[in-house]
């Protein structure tokens, strides 16, 4: 059985004797060797064929080793090929310079066969591992992209347009996939089920837990379950799931577009906020509550708010209120109040966009930590 060709090497060496010698060694190790007698030829060959490694003589007439290195490092398609430079033993300064430029290792001439094999094997192994790593990362990114698209597709595509009301919403996940969710679900008698939630954790596990919770809540809404009972039911189900260390904060409620009241149940989530026609913000009164997915006897905060004419009901996640800047200051209630006051003339979608802009400005260079979600409902 023929032995497998281990790798494609490019040997750049102007001296014939050295080419013969090293070529002999390398071919003895089952490498496929291509020879270049100078830098120019080396560069021509590099763009024509794929090589696993280059052995480069530093001192050659015409184009020398540095120039070859320069060209290779500047080319993104060639940059990852490991380069071992060869030189006389009195040229260590040049060697150091080459390594600073990006060469991976060096060999002194006359080349010792044992060292040649050792250095080449080491470099090839490293390259092999880097290639695997790169392929794995690319695959992961593709999978995350699919997960993100799947997740984004389950959120409401279009918000409803009931008479006398206008809806706006915006969700920006912190990572490729998020843990926040929201929905507006049609119910009987001109009422709408509104929900917003936030799963602890981020990334793929949170996204999966989020999808589950969200589906459970939706099915409760379709059965016209009262908000507090819905939370209790879903809590019960999640506890049966045994999902380690994950829980969800939820705010769900029913908006009655005839009575203009929003009756809600809150489990650990931020309380809703009302902005009146003049731009004054007020939060709903709070009573203690717990997130779902942890405790058997769930503590729920039940409340009811009226939405005044030309007023806006806002539900949001802590990606808004806890967004920090470089000084670690949160985007707190005061700031929120100011922004909402400025926005009071804008429509709900515009309000959501403006809020996102403000939160981003506030954060500055700090990377987004939490999913940002806002749901704005105006009583026209």
């Amino acid at each position, binding site marked *: 059985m023929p032995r497998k060709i281990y790798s494609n090497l490019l040997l750049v060496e*102007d*001296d*014939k*004797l*050295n080419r*013969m*010698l090293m070529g*002999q*060694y390398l071919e*003895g190790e089952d490498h496929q060797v291509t020879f270049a007698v100078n830098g120019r030829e080396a560069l021509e060959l590099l763009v024509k064929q794929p090589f696993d490694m280059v052995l480069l003589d530093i*001192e050659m*007439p015409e184009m020398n080793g540095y120039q070859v290195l320069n060209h290779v490092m500047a080319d993104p398609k060639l940059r990852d090929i490991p380069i071992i430079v060869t030189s*006389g033993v*009195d040229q260590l300064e040049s060697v150091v310079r080459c390594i600073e430029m990006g060469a991976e290792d060096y060999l002194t*001439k*006359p080349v010792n*066969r044992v060292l040649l094999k050792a250095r080449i094997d080491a470099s090839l192994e490293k390259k092999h591992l880097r290639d695997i790593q790169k392929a794995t990362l690319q695959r992961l990114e593709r999978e995350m992209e699919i997960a993100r698209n799947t997740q984004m597709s389950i959120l409401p595509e279009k918000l409803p347009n009931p008479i006398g009301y206008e809806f706006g919403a915006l969700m920006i996940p912190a990572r490729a996939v998020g843990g926040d969710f929201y929905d507006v679900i049609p119910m009987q008698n001109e009422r709408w089920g509104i929900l917003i939630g936030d799963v602890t954790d981020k990334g793929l596990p949170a996204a999966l837990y989020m999808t589950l919770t969200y589906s459970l809540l939706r099915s409760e809404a379709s059965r016209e379950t009262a908000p507090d009972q819905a939370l209790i039911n879903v809590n019960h189900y999640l506890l049966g799931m045994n999902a380690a260390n994950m829980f969800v904060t939820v705010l769900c409620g029913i908006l009655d577009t005839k009575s203009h009241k929003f009756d809600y149940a809150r489990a650990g989530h931020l309380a809703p906020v009302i902005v009146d026609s003049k731009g004054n913000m007020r939060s709903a009164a709070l009573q203690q509550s717990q997130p779902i997915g942890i405790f058997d006897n769930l503590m729920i905060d039940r409340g009811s708010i009226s939405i005044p004419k030309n007023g806006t009901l806002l539900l949001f996640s802590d990606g808004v209120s806890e967004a920090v800047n470089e000084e670690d200051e949160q985007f707190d209630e005061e700031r929120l109040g100011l922004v909402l006051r400025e926005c009071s003339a804008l429509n709900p979608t515009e309000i959501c966009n403006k809020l996102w802009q403000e939160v981003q400005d506030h954060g500055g260079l700090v990377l987004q930590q939490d999913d940002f979600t806002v749901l704005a409902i105006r009583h026209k």
Partner: protein
Amino acid sequence: MNLLTKIDPHIFNTLKLDFGEDFLEELLETFCNDSNQQLESMQTALEEGNAEDFTRAAHTLKSTSLTFGASAFGALARELEMLGREGNLEASREKFQQLYDASEPLFSELKDMCHASENL
């Protein structure tokens, strides 16, 4: 003269073991021919006062002779390379002559070692 033809047996025998006598002979053939060319180059360069060509030829001669274990010869070639780099061709004349005179005896010595049995 004797000193300049000295060959490091360890280096040479390793080559012999790695490549076998036949390929080694081929290598030596190339070495001798190429070295003569380098020496001619150096001669011409000296006459023309061309330090660059002189240096380059000396450099190659140094590398290749060291490869075969001709340490003293290689060291002399290195000295000439250094002088060439400095542009000091005048000071090179005498040493170059020594190198030139040692070359043929060196080549003979190498060929003898190639054909000699290992247990000398």
